[in-house]
């Protein structure tokens, strides 16, 4: 019997304040754990509104240091209590004025494993991210958690195949893609790019998107969170496009081996011929 990872994703709507937003996510940890989920990833900038709809430095306050900040510590306790791996997409302050769009990864025993910093930062109407974040500079870490090897690729990153590949080469079995993306802009890509990345790199992808319209703008976040397997098949149903939802699915790692034995993309790739891609 191959290894099965019970993995979870949580999409939700902005509650109106940071503390209640954190509490909603704490409850989601308990709900996921009640079903035996071994790993859970939240949506991008999980405890805030998607403030990049406006350019207002008041939202710099949402950033905190990782892992020293209070939120990471709070979720470390929960992770340990429930024996669950947590991926926390947050707003990180390295030092005043040096801010990143980051995900912290907590192991099932509550220990802090490290962070991924979003590399690709958009600057288009409704997504004014360059105002808030420096581009990521912490490489392509894959975290060796209690349940398996996990990578994170945040929101706009997903449009760039190179990072997906780097995570695959580093051994990721599941890559989480926490996002905040709106109906008019990207819905035609949402069920195309991540399944394609899962196929190209022969791993599972968990894609998370928040739901609802927030007071800061007109972005209509369309949820439809899902897991997709290395054959581009959705694992169970895609979540609601309007309601908060916890997605809990069993991911069969035997499938990963089966597909990699069938295809040999990692063997047959030609990095020696790819220099033009990395030329600055």
């Amino acid at each position, binding site marked *: 019997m191959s290894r099965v990872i019970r993995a979870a994703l949580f999409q939700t709507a902005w509650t109106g304040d940071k503390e209640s937003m954190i509490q909603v996510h704490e409850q989601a940890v308990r*709900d996921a754990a009640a079903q035996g989920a071994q790993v859970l990833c939240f949506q991008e900038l999980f405890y805030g509104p998607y403030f990049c709809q406006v350019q207002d430095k008041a939202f710099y306050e949402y950033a905190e240091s990782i892992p020293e900040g209070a939120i990471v510590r709070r979720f470390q306790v929960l992770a340990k209590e429930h024996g669950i791996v947590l991926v926390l997409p947050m707003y990180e302050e390295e030092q005043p004025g040096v801010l990143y769009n980051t995900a912290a990864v907590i192991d099932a025993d509550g220990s802090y494993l490290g962070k991924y910093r979003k590399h690709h930062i958009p600057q288009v109407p409704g997504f004014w991210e360059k105002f808030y974040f420096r581009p990521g500079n912490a490489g392509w870490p894959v975290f060796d958690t209690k349940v398996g090897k996990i990578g994170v690729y945040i929101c706009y990153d997903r449009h760039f195949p190179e990072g997906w590949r780097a995570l695959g080469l580093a051994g990721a079995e599941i890559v989480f893609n926490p996002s905040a993306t709106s109906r008019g802009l990207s819905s035609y890509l949402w069920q195309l790019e991540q399944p394609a990345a899962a196929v190209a790199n022969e791993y599972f992808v968990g894609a998370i998107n928040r739901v609802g319209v927030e007071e800061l703008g007109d972005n209509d976040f369309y949820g439809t969170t899902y897991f997709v397997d290395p054959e581009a*098949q959705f694992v169970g149903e895609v979540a609601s496009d309007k309601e908060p939802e916890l997605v809990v699915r069993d991911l069969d790692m035997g499938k990963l081996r089966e597909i990699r034995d069938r295809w040999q993309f990692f063997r047959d790739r030609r990095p020696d011929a790819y220099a033009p891609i990395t030329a600055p």
Partner: protein
Amino acid sequence: MTTVFEPLGPALSVRQVLALERVLAGEPEVIAGASRLDRPVRWVHVAEAADVGVMLSGGEMVLTTGVLLAGDEDKQAEYIRSLHRAEAAAVVLGLGRAFPAPPDVMRRAAERCGLPMIVLHRPFPFAELTEEVQSRLVRRKFAAVSLSEAVRTALTGLITAGAPLQRLLDEVAQHSACPVVVTNLAHRVLATAGERPAVDDVLRDWERIARQAGGSEGDGWIRAELGGRGERWGQIMLCGYRGDTGVGRLLADRAAEALVLHRMLGNAAHSWEEESAQGLLTDLVSEVVPARQLLPRARAAGLPVNRRTFVPLVVRDGTPAQLDRLLRLLGLSGLVAELAGDATAVLLSLPRDQDAEALTEHFAARLRTEPGSGETVVAAAGPRTVWDDVPAGLREAQHVADAVADSSAALDLPAVVRLKDVHLRGLIRLLRDDPRVQSFAERELDGLLCERDGEEAALLAVLRTYLASGRNKSRTAQLHHVSRPALYRRLEAIQTRLGVDLDDFEQAASVHIALLAHDAQQG
């Protein structure tokens, strides 16, 4: 009245044109591209110009005498190549003055391109052929427009008459002569129409079809998006349409327009998702259809059914929408639907390795944290690992919910109530229609059921609480907001009217049973 059209077959092919009586009289001979005679002919065009290719837009059968080509082999070969580039369906050459015999250069060029080339050994005026083929093609176009109009009129009529979704789909299926499936964005099947065995075949394979991230058209699978006001919310599919693809697309588009209109008018009391779940759970409970046959429908409706534990629940106060939202929030798989009698059924589907009872408790506890649901009771049947046992489980949950329907406050029930919790109450509920039980209840409670001074209803309520609370006087007084002395006076009045001593266990038990039976009959 509904006009039923035969599904229109594919457009006229080259082969069909050659088989027309008028053409046969011209003694046609296929001299090249014989393997491509099934190409559709969109139009028939007479052209003698050497550069005819630039005037074509594809799909034409070109008729020529070759008068401008005779004697120039380069021109002949280029003529054929230009037809090929313009994607003409075929070329027909009438033999005569220009070409007494089939020209070899043209034949070779046509064979290389794969362009069907036909010569007529006994040429006839081309106008006779164009007239015949053109009128057939026009008739086909007209038939398609008529079909489109007929479907639109029929569906609009149904919508204005307030017909349900199912009736609309039945109409579409009648025209398409193949299974019709409506899904939401999660590829959950919301409704189907068509002949049952064919629909079941489609649903049996649904998981594979639905889980394809892309989704392809072809093999007669014709899809049309459902949406409006910039929002997409589902799809309608003709599964295995056997006629012409263009006509199928037209049917699917008309159906999609009607469905969007139906949904936007929004006169249905329930969403399509609710209606779908309701139909399924109602069929399961009633066992009109054996559970096993409903399995493909359940799977297509999004309920995981392989290696699962099923927990049937019934919730008295709680709307399907609220319960569905909670299931999503907790990440639990299940179907939710309102059943008869103000009860909502929830069929949970849990992985086998999970503690079904603990998750049911978790669900019920979270339900009580919802606004206005502080006292909500979830009636649960025992977990079922076999699908065939689910109908009995649903009925068990219904029975438990009925048994505790009116007395949850006095009983101080836990969040989840099971068969073992309803004790005597459950038995009485089952026996409530027995005339002997009914006359027993009448006899025992006679003094409080016959109206004399209008106090009877209030006294009956006190009696109910007193007995349900295990003859706890302080709790009864508290629940009825009266002082202890006032309660004593009421208990005294009750004993006098019934002629019993409630301190005597057997007499109290007898009255209690009678009251349970009375309440069961009322409910």
